[in-house]
């Protein structure tokens, strides 16, 4: 995993912890950013904005916010990066939740709103003060609570409050109004960018002379203009408490976020610690609910918490250690001791001519690492006479530019018959998606561990 991707994972875990500590439904989706992503891609940023928004809502509602130092434990040691567990599967998202819906979320954000200064602005100030004052009095009677407070006589134009069925006035703000009333046309799914419009708010509060100064997409521009035209009347701008006609420039930024809406699955909270054989805590060990992407990392004291359904199996892995599987349980904490592993799993030694830093994409088996697991499990036959043997055989292969498996080589054998069987199955693997170096398919070596287990199960990890 590149350094960027590992940063991305840590940042995502912090976001998850913030959401959990504050009871925020966590929205996440898989990071599709190619290459080195230090958590700065638009999707990851959108998740931060989402959390901020929800924290702000909690704050406004007078609820407590848990934030200060809640993830400090994760980063309490400077050796975390070195100990970050390497995984040979594609980058995984950390999702202790169930996907309930996937959606494209779009939002128009007002990034700029300012007057276009003109002479009319000034000349109105003293011309018809008395008439305007009369009008203002009537306005105060009608919308009293919305008039500017004493001393705040200069104001931008703004939307009028509307009267609801019970006769109460409800404030309308431009940004929410726009987002509630815009109807996105078809075919603008992946759009992002700015739309700049200019319009005049007359002395009577009518929106006029709507002009498009900078467009983004013909269909969307048209829709924005429609929405502006149909907008109800505003309060005009005020200078010294007097209504004036004003021209406003407004920039709307379209933000698109492909999100998967997920709901927490609150079945079982498993707690425990991960340590090595000498009892030292392992920091940053990965604890995964088997067969899912529900994952957490152990903190600086080796401790972890993970929500899983009942009867789930946890896979615990750490670089340089043998992967272990344990049954989730609720009442007593799990103390997991990992044994040292001489043979790194799924390690990718690169062709001699390449530097490790330049691997961009590793070869991928159709269906990913789970596909490989299943494929091996269904094809392995225990040879006669060695049914009682269990263990792991490691085979190294080269995946060539076209994705074909070449040159299988026994790295760590177990028994001649089992080794032969492992080589047979690995040699017969279907075509892979080749690894990429600088965007081009390239030969790469790949290490495949093949497990032999009693009963009927035999699988690679």
């Amino acid at each position, binding site marked *: 995993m590149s350094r960027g991707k590992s*940063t991305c994972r840590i940042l995502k875990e*912090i976001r998850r912890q913030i959401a959990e500590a504050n009871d925020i439904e966590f929205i996440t989706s898989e990071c599709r950013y190619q290459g080195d992503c*230090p958590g700065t891609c638009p999707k990851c940023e959108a998740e931060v904005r989402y959390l901020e928004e929800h*924290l702000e809502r909690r704050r406004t509602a007078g609820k407590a916010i848990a934030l200060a130092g809640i993830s400090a434990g*994760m*980063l309490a040691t400077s050796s975390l990066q070195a100990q970050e567990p390497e995984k040979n599967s594609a980058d995984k998202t950390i999702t202790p939740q169930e996907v309930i819906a996937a959606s494209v979320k779009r939002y128009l954000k007002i990034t700029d709103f300012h007057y276009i200064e003109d002479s009319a602005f000034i000349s109105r100030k003293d011309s018809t003060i008395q008439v305007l004052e009369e009008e203002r009095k009537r306005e105060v009677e009608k919308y009293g609570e919305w008039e500017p407070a004493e001393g705040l006589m200069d104001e931008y134009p703004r939307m009028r409050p509307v009267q609801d069925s019970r006769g109460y006035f409800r404030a309308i703000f431009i940004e929410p109004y726009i987002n509630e009333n815009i109807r996105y046309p078809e075919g603008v799914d992946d759009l992002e960018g700015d739309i700049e419009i200019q319009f005049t708010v007359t002395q009577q509060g009518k929106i006029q002379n709507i002009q498009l100064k900078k467009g983004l997409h013909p269909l969307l521009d048209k829709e924005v203009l429609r929405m502006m035209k149909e907008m109800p009347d505003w309060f005009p701008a005020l200078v010294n408490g007097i209504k004036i006609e004003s021209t406003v420039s407004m920039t709307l930024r379209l933000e698109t976020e492909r999100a998967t809406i997920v709901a927490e699955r609150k079945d079982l909270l498993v707690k425990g610690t991960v340590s090595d054989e000498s009892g030292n805590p392992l920091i940053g060990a990965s604890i995964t609910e088997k067969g899912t992407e529900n994952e957490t990392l152990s903190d600086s004291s080796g401790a972890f918490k993970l929500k899983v359904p009942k009867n789930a199996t946890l896979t615990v892995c750490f670089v340089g250690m043998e992967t272990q599987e344990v049954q989730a349980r609720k009442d007593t904490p799990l103390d997991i001791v990992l044994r040292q592993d001489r043979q790194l799993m799924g390690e990718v030694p690169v062709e001699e001519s390449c530097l490790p830093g330049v691997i961009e994409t590793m070869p991928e088996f159709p269906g990913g690492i789970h596909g490989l697991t299943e494929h091996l499990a269904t094809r392995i036959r225990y040879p006669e006479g060695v049914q009682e043997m269990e263990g792991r055989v490691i085979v190294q292969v080269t995946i060539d530019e076209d994705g074909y498996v070449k040159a299988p080589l026994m790295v760590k054998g177990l028994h001649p018959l089992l080794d032969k069987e492992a080589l047979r199955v690995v040699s017969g693997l279907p075509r892979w998606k080749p690894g990429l170096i600088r965007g081009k398919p390239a030969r790469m070596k790949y290490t495949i561990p093949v497990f032999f287990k009693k009963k009927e199960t035999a699988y690679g990890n």
Partner: protein
Amino acid sequence: MCLTKVFTAPLIGISRHRLLTDGEGISTLVAFHGCPLRCKYCFNPQSWEHEERCERLDCATLYERTRMDELYFLATGGGITFGGGEPCLRSGFITEFCRLCGNDWQITVETSLNVPQPHIEKLLPAVNRFIIDIKDMNPDIYRRYTGQGNEQVLTNLRLLQRQGRAADCTLRLPLIPGFNTEKDRNRSVEQLKAEGFACFDLFTYITPKNQQP
């Protein structure tokens, strides 16, 4: 509108999401242009040339640009690390910035301390952690490596110590190939321990072969 003095500073870079590389938690490194030293193996030599190519920002803009990571800062006890170049030469800017960002961000400076004392005095209330690049305590070695004397460094170290800030300092003592030895470094450590400092970062400079004397 109320007009206040606006501090601006030329920056050679802003690097986000640094994990423990310089200071606590997740930090954003803000690197200033300009440095009084001319270290032979300088890591950011762009900090002493072409100021006109640097982006010049005011505090408010820098705050806007860094605020997006506030959640990470708060959750991990991180914040901003000012480096460079020599950040302490921008004490006005940093102080003003800290007024904007409030007390919850961890503010770290990565400095040589080779700056006039008023700068350090000004920074004392604003900065949480000082990462100090001592180089070597031996004035001859220091001068040979940086082109400057280290009297100012010692004065400022004593200021920090007197102000009770020794515990907030991490002192970097590199082995500089061709300039000092393990023996020199041990001597520096002893000397600094005697001054009341306890947190040291010992490492070796990695130098390009062609620069090795």
